[in-house]
């Protein structure tokens, strides 16, 4: 190397740059220069550093990507999403909407490497369920949402959602849609209402019931049937008692399957006649069939209230765009338009009045706009510690296979 090259200002700048950012093991391994094998290993290493939000380039880069669940937004005959089209027209922000979340777990498995390193995961908004949102918040993987910058959200978020156990004050998450876990049944089997969880354990229903495959859903409802206040003080003893009951039912062949949304298919094929289900599904199923073939009811002992929540991953460079979109959906008219399609519970105040002009019959549907008495029968879980999350999920997975 010649002396003149060393004196070249560009070269000197490079040296300064290199000195300013000392090569850590992670940046070396994860960098493009690192061998691929090692990069793969480094990606598995959990991040022990505290992550910081990525630089926001929203003002110059008017776009955002949103990962959501299938069939979870209004859609028209051409396959376009009317509320998103209107948002793009109003703000000039280009939205890439992807049905990228078949389950919380599968989505996490796809993005976890970059997510845990605080890098861009390709999505600026992700909509994850409470128990998973809780993990994201406590592991510091999501940016502060800045609800104070969102006039509609700060005004219209219903009081019932303002404080959630894992995110008091809603600093990192805002509900997109909510729903209730309760009892679903086929009216061809029983025209009477299914009212208690214990009815599911009737030997006559052997092999004809399905439960949900996420511990929070199933265990929240079973524990309440055993008299536990799930948002209050409970611990291992209460959980283990519910696991014992569940294990016995699985071993006796009472439970046909543990499912996600696909319990609706089991209802249609006649494999099951009763199940733990989600409010919106049953309503959609009846609408599609054009009949009233399936019923849904919160058990007298209590149902489970959950939400899927907007969150901005730490590595997203489009926070401001994301805030604009989230706030847009907190307008009552827009929320009503979405609710009319997805049939889940909307967390937006005023949406019920707005719904009256869209579809008056939906405005009185208590599974989209639950009355006080319905809401009082659906509870959310108390805050779960990381140790408990791990322990309870593991116990549940064991119980599921008998």
């Amino acid at each position: 190397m010649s002396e003149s090259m060393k004196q070249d200002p560009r070269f000197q700048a490079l040296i300064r740059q290199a000195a300013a950012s000392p090569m850590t093991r992670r940046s070396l391994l994860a960098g493009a220069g690192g061998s691929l094998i090692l990069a793969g290993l480094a990606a598995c290493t959990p991040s022990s550093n505290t992550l910081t939000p990525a630089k926001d380039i929203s003002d110059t880069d008017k776009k955002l990507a949103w990962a959501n669940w299938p069939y979870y937004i209004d859609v028209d005959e051409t396959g376009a999403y009317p509320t998103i089209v209107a948002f793009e027209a109003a703000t000039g922000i280009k939205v890439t909407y992807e049905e990228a979340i078949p389950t919380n777990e599968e989505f996490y498995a796809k993005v976890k490497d970059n997510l845990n390193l605080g890098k861009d995961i390709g999505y600026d908004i992700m909509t994850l369920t409470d128990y998973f949102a809780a993990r994201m918040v406590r592991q510091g993987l999501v940016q502060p949402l800045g609800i104070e910058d969102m006039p509609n959200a700060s005004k219209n978020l219903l009081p019932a959602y303002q404080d959630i156990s894992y995110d008091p004050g809603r600093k990192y998450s805002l509900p997109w849609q909510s729903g209730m876990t309760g009892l679903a049944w086929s009216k061809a089997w029983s025209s009477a209402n299914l009212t208690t969880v214990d009815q599911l354990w009737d030997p006559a229903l052997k092999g004809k019931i399905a439960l949900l495959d996420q511990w929070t859903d199933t265990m929240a409802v079973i524990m309440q049937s055993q008299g536990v206040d799930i948002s209050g003080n409970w611990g291992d003893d209460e959980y283990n008692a519910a696991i014992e009951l569940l294990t016995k039912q699985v071993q006796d062949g009472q439970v046909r399957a543990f499912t996600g949304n696909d319990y609706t298919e089991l209802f249609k094929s006649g494999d099951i006649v009763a199940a733990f289900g989600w409010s919106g599904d049953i309503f959609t199923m009846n609408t599609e069939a054009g009949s009233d073939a399936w019923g849904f009811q919160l058990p007298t002992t209590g149902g489970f209230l959950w939400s899927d929540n907007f969150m901005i991953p730490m590595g997203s460079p489009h926070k401001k765009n994301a805030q604009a979109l989230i706030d847009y959906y907190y307008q009552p008219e827009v929320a009503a338009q979405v609710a009319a399609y997805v049939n889940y519970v909307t967390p937006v105040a005023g949406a019920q009045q707005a719904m009256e002009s869209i579809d008056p019959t939906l405005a009185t549907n208590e599974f989209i706009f639950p009355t006080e008495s319905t809401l009082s029968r659906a509870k959310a879980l108390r805050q779960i510690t990381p140790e408990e999350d791990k322990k309870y999920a593991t116990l549940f997975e064991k119980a599921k296979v008998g």
Partner: protein
Amino acid sequence: MAFAAFADTSEKKSAEPVKKSRVVILMLLPGLAYLLLFFLAPLVSLILTSFMAPDPNSMDMGQFVYSFQWQNYVTVISENWSFFVRSFGFAILATVIALIVSYPIAYFIGVYARPWPAIQAFALILVIAPFFISFLLRTLAWKQLLGDDGWVVTTLKSASLLPADGHITGTAFSVVFGLTYNFIPFMVLPIYTSLERLDMRLLEAGRDLYASPSTTFWKVTLPLSMPGVVAGTLLTFIPASGDFVNASSSFLGGPGTQMVGNQIASNFLKILDYPAASVLSVVLMAVIMVIVSVYVRRAGTEELL
């Protein structure tokens, strides 16, 4: 083989051998790189993961650090051995049934239908046609067909072959059925290729020497088709032991039919226990390798191939 052939036909036979071997290495590079990237690297990563220990600084799910926690193998195997037994049981059953079903099909196409190439071609298309539809969709279709309100179950019930409260989906029967169904083409095709080359004069010679048709089959046809049988059984048994679709609750299985593949998925996705999922995968691979090598040695295919 291919490389040797290439070397022989190269123009300058007397050219410097160094240069030739460079060409060979160059040609091998894509294959080697592929194996390194997509086989060796994931395997090393998998084995390293299987020895990981929980992160002492974080009790949260999915937090692990590199370590040499060999006890993982002890705990995971002792907790999951029954799933291994079930997986291999199901896989062996499915392989045997698939063989019994496939051999006559392959014999029909490869030997019996020889005088009618059109029928041969048509039958082959029938065997391959299912591949045009996604494996998941076909399995879901079976879930509907075998559902409690489907005609299969209602007919069996009215014939009293199934108790009134009985069902098919979610049982071991439907899982083995699904595995068999899904892997039958992998069994038929290799046996067909073996039988298709069968020299008919050998069968005639057998008859001339007063061998009964069954003796000719056991002494001539079957031994000559062994390479196809071995290939077919391997192509069925190996993927069937690791399968997690058929046995899952969303398809043909239920809580009591979960196989090792389902346990791996549950550990990996649900409880984020990556070391346990890796241990299960490593053990599954190791056991399959042992079973397969014993089987191949017993079948004595070295001479046949």
